[in-house]
């Protein structure tokens, strides 16, 4: 079945709606209320097009043709909203690209939409990424003929802990109310008032505390709904954004990290229909500060500042002296690549295979995007063949003198409750840590600041067995070639982000830490067991090749949306 859009013929599937069909093919039609995950109310009236059906002879059903043999088209008398228009065979559509009339209708609609809009873009957080601003410039009229005072509505309304409303900016698209009705099902927002005094609101006395409340800020096509934590923090053009994966729990939520001055300022969901669709919980956004605050600067030896070379030497000495009496702890927070290298290191020093601390608490999640597992890579550990740690056994080993050294990769066994300070008496501790608040840090003989998920390259496997790739969103002090390449820093900044204002190179905010795939080979080399990989991608290629549980999961294949790994059954 075919449809002719602006003179070009396309094949379609029954049930396709015109707007989505066009968007999928790169034909942009301005729109506001339509959202692919929500019902279609066709209320903004922005996506108007002209459409018609070929005339058919009533008796024969044949196409009626004009004197030139061209099929005669019966146009619908009224313009059609493309978001709600179901395609049918032979339909002819004219968008704003080939009909001045359609372009004029769209401009008319934008004129009306803007008459009561405050046009306060200079102080609006949405400016720069605002569908209203962008589409008004592209499709709107030159100016306005409106000469009256605009309608006034409530401003700076704290709808709930995380969302602030400026009702004057609202264009009444009802995306937010449809989200709470149809997606999060909290039913907390509804439009109140009528006509041009409408705006979304909670029921009297109610608080918009939906655990997914901030999604409405993402889908609001104007600056009416903003995230409380991010308001007035930064203009979008001062920031760069990096597509990556959240380390908030086992769902593997796809996100964009927004960064200025090497600080993560905002985390928003990135579309992945196989994982989180368009959404993420508020809690997964509010972790942004953990990537900026309480970060260690450089390695320490017994609490004293040191440098990386000296630290590697010390670790190698400790491991050599231990003669295999080492326990290695992997981590469900560390990447597959880093855990894999740790396993190799354990093997090289003749220790048992690493184990990891499982944090799964059945029933603690919400059966949606908050997982029972607060850690992002438990499946990755499982698939590597690591077992969850048995704390009782470990305590016994430590107490029984079987162990001289505890090697901890990106974990905090004391805070996790598996060990106490007493257990570590007389034990040498080597610790890769994210934060100065790490409770095991006080007992570390060698402390190696570790790159967090926003600073490294690697792979997480979510609880459904989807391997997904992390990209560095911010710089660390010692950017190596792999990080540079992945961050695209090799390219000119203005080429990639279109702005010279990002202070990416601000050294104050760069953390002096290292990714595991930089540290572990350096140590292994000193132990005479070199691991030589050109990049984390090469590590992952080896894992994918050697281990069927990771089959197909190369960095290239994972790209932006990840790879579904084959089922390995329930994790133990």
């Amino acid at each position: 079945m075919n449809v002719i859009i602006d003179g070009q013929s396309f094949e379609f599937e029954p049930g396709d709606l015109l707007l989505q069909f066009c968007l999928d093919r790169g034909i942009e039609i301005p729109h506001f209320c339509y959202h692919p995950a929500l019902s279609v109310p066709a209320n903004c009236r922005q996506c108007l097009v002209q459409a018609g059906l070929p005339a058919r002879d009533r008796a024969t059903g044949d196409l009626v043709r004009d004197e030139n043999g061209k099929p005669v088209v019966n146009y619908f008398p009224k313009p059609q909203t493309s978001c709600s228009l179901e395609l049918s065979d032979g339909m002819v559509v004219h968008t704003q690209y080939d009909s001045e009339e359609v372009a004029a209708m769209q401009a008319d609609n934008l004129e009306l939409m803007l008459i009561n809009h405050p046009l306060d873009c200079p102080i609006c957080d949405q400016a720069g990424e605002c569908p209203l601003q962008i589409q008004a410039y592209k499709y709107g009229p030159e100016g306005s003929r409106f000469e009256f005072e605009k309608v006034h509505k409530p401003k700076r309304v704290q709808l709930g802990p995380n969302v602030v409303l400026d009702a004057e900016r609202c264009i009444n698209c009802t995306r937010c109310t449809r989200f709470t009705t149809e997606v999060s099902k909290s039913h907390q927002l509804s439009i109140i008032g009528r006509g041009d005094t409408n705006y979304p609101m909670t029921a009297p006395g109610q608080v918009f505390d939906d655990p997914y409340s901030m999604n409405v800020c993402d889908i609001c096509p104007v600056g009416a709904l903003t995230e409380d934590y991010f308001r007035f923090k930064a203009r979008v053009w001062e920031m760069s954004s990096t597509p990556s994966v959240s380390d908030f729990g086992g769902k593997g939520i796809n996100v964009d990290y927004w960064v200025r001055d090497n600080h993560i300022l905002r985390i928003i969901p990135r579309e992945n229909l196989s994982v989180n669709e368009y959404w993420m919980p508020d809690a997964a956004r509010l972790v942004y500060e953990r990537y900026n605050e309480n970060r260690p600067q450089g390695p320490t030896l017994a609490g004293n500042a040191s440098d990386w070379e000296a630290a590697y030497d010390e670790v190698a000495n400790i491991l050599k002296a231990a003669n295999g009496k080492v326990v290695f702890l992997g981590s469900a927070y560390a990447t597959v690549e880093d855990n894999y290298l740790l396993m190799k290191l354990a093997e090289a020093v003749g220790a048992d295979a690493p184990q990891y601390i499982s944090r799964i608490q059945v029933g603690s999640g919400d059966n949606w995007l908050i997982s029972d597992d607060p850690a992002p890579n438990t499946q990755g550990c499982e698939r590597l063949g690591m077992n969850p740690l048995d704390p009782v056994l470990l305590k016994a080993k430590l107490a029984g003198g079987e162990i001289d050294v505890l090697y901890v990769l990106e974990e905090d066994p004391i805070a996790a409750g598996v060990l106490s300070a007493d257990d570590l008496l007389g034990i040498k501790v080597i610790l890769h840590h994210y934060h100065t608040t790490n409770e095991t840090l006080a007992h570390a003989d060698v402390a190696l600041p570790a790159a967090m998920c926003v600073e490294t390259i690697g792979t997480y496997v979510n609880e459904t067995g989807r391997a997904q790739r992390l990209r560095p969103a911010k710089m660390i002090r010692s950017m190596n070639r792999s990080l540079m390449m992945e961050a695209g820093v090799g390219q000119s900044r203005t080429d990639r982000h279109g702005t010279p204002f990002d202070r990416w190179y601000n050294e104050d905010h760069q953390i002096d830490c290292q990714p595991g795939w930089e540290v572990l080979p350096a140590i292994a080399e000193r132990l005479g067991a070199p691991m030589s990989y050109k990049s984390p991608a090469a590590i992952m290629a080896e894992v994918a090749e050697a281990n069927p549980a990771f089959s197909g999961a190369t960095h290239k294949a994972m790209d932006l949306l990840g790879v579904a790994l084959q089922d390995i059954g329930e994790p133990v």
Partner: protein
Amino acid sequence: MADAPSLITGETKAGDWRNYERVLLPPVKDLHKIDVYEENGGYSALKAIVEDGKFDPKGLTDEVKASGLRGRGGAGFATGLKWSFMPAVDPEKPRYLCCNGDESEPGTFKDRQIFEYNPHLMIEGIVLSCYAMTIKTCYLYIRGEYIDYVNHVQTAVDEAYASGYIGQKILGTDFSTEIVVHCGAGAYICGEETSLMESLEGERAYPRIKPPFPAQSGCWGMPTTINNVETLACVPLIVNRGAAWFAGIGPEKHPGPVLYGISGHVNKPGVYEFPTGMLITDLIEVAGGVRGGKNIKAIIPGGSSTPPLTWEMAREATMDAETLREAGSSMGTAGLCILDEDTDMVAFTRRIAHFYHHESCGQCTPCRDGTGWVEKLLSRIENGEGYTRDLELLLEICDQMEGRTVCALADAAAWPVRWGIRRFRDEFEARCKAESFVSSEMGDGASTETESITI
């Protein structure tokens, strides 16, 4: 209508209307009481159908089709045809009838006469319509402000239940149907059919896009038909007296008895029952003539949304859809408003614009923001602060609203303004300032208003 002979002849199409016998609101005291209604032949149509099998459901629908009955709720759609859009009965799916008693359009006040004086005729009509479409539930949606009528109609419904005319096994037969009286939510938009269904479902009364049409997916997504109170009240009459009788009243294409709600500058405003096709001049005479013997300036023939006619255009027109279309307006709800020569058309138009601005549900951009802009412009013209260019702008805003929204409220808001300006332009212009630009100081094309607003 170029080829058609003019329907505007100055001759009544209502037949011998001076001897017309009222059937919707017959002059019977206490007819709202069920026993009085029964004494006067009430519920005999229902008995003839369910007890005597006068028509099967399809036969009844065909009879209504043959009668030529057209909806009295404003759009004038053929009732029998609408009923036939209902899909075949699916035992898994409930089906609904909605009786639309939201009556909120300025100039329209006729359904309430039925609620007050002849509610059982409507109830009987509802039950018959449910029979025709095999429907087991009717929601009778009555405008919230009509709280007295809500209570009054509820009493009548209770009586009908007690007498076995509604409910399970009606009159001991296998036919059952329920009527639920629902008190409206206090907004004009609730009378729009899809909005009414949202309101019934407990949602905010935002009209739905069509398709799907209510017959496919109406209340709770189920097949639904929606008819006006007066429309349904005609059904027992058609059953009792036959389609041919009904079709013989008034003009061929738009027949039947009709309740004319006459308001404005007449001596005896009120609701008058006559055949369709009445001359507007006759209706004015019926309503006691123009107050103070004044001349007439304008006629609104069918409720506030229908385009105003100048007296020239209206004086030879009759009240039926075809003729009024040709005259330049429409039949709407047959709520006529007579405006005498002293009427300030600018103020009148502004007041109507205020109504639509106030009642827009606010869902669609053109209606939400257009209705407000229109009212603001008309207000400044009324206050002598407008410019002639504002008239052009108003017409353009009407273009920007009409035919581009989810429901017809935006059209209803645009028409009186468009046709008011077109047909009474002199009066609008006389109120406008011609000079619209402050030349010397500003020099940037901004108007004085812009100046005072931006400073």
